[in-house]
């Protein structure tokens, strides 16, 4: 654990400094976590909701955080769980199949006023939504954020070997999608 993290942890355990310390955490991590979530849910409004839930969960769970993991890892884990829960709930609410979920996500993307990509990027996004959820998560983390497999292992609890295989399969599927699309 770095010295800054250790200091931050001390502040989080001090009831008088807790709010200020957490406020600093929100400011430091909000962008990274937002993009991590946004790549999965695609729409800005949904990403905003999930981000709020993520920080609220972290705030309420501060007493349970003893610094066993890095703050980054801990927050990414919460954000990932919240995102997957959000997508599962959405699926349940709409009683959609995987195919319909793809269509729904693409609809989100097309109707989102904050999508500012070109034609190729739109095709890439279309290809990404065809991937299974976990594979999509791995692909996004590696391709867009260049997160190391070791970090991903700590966040997702999946071995480095499995993550590498997952990314490799995702790339193959995306290239195949481009050929067939």
């Amino acid at each position, binding site marked *: 654990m770095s010295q800054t993290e250790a200091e931050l942890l001390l502040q989080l355990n001090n009831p008088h400094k807790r*709010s200020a310390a957490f406020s600093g955490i929100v400011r430091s991590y909000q962008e990274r976590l937002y993009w991590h979530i946004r790549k999965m849910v695609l729409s*800005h409004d949904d990403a905003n909701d999930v981000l709020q839930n993520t920080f609220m969960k972290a705030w309420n769970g501060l007493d349970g955080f003893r610094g066993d993991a890095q703050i980054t890892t801990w927050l990414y884990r919460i954000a990932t769980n919240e995102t997957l829960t959000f997508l599962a709930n959405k699926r349940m609410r709409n009683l959609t199949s995987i195919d319909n979920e793809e269509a729904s996500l693409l609809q989100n993307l097309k109707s989102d006023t904050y999508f500012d990509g070109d034609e190729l990027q739109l*095709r890439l996004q279309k290809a990404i939504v065809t991937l299974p959820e976990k594979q999509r998560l791995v692909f996004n983390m590696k391709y867009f954020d260049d997160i190391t497999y070791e970090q991903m292992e700590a966040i997702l609890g999946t071995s480095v070997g499995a993550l590498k295989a997952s990314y490799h399969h995702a790339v193959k599927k995306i290239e195949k999608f481009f050929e067939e699309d």
Partner: protein
Amino acid sequence: MEKKKHISLDEISNKLPFGVPENYFDQFAVQFDNQIAINHISFVNRYRPWMYVAAVFVGVLLFGRVFFTAYQNNQAANTENYEMYVMSQVDEDEIIDYYLTEGNN
């Protein structure tokens, strides 16, 4: 326009093609600070009745202690007064006679 079939991922920018509303992150942080503050207040509100009950309990204990001490002091004073009253009703000769009679027995 015909779509290009053989696209490699290297040809596509890995910059995210999404945007956010202006000042979104600044506003998010401020809103979240407020949310935490409200949560903190509601925590105090939630436990306020229990705080009152605890305060009343402590008050009753303190009052009981003061009352009990005063009661004990009063009892001691009453006993002393009673003894003095009894002694005042008996004259000194009678007491001397009593002790002498006791001594004879």
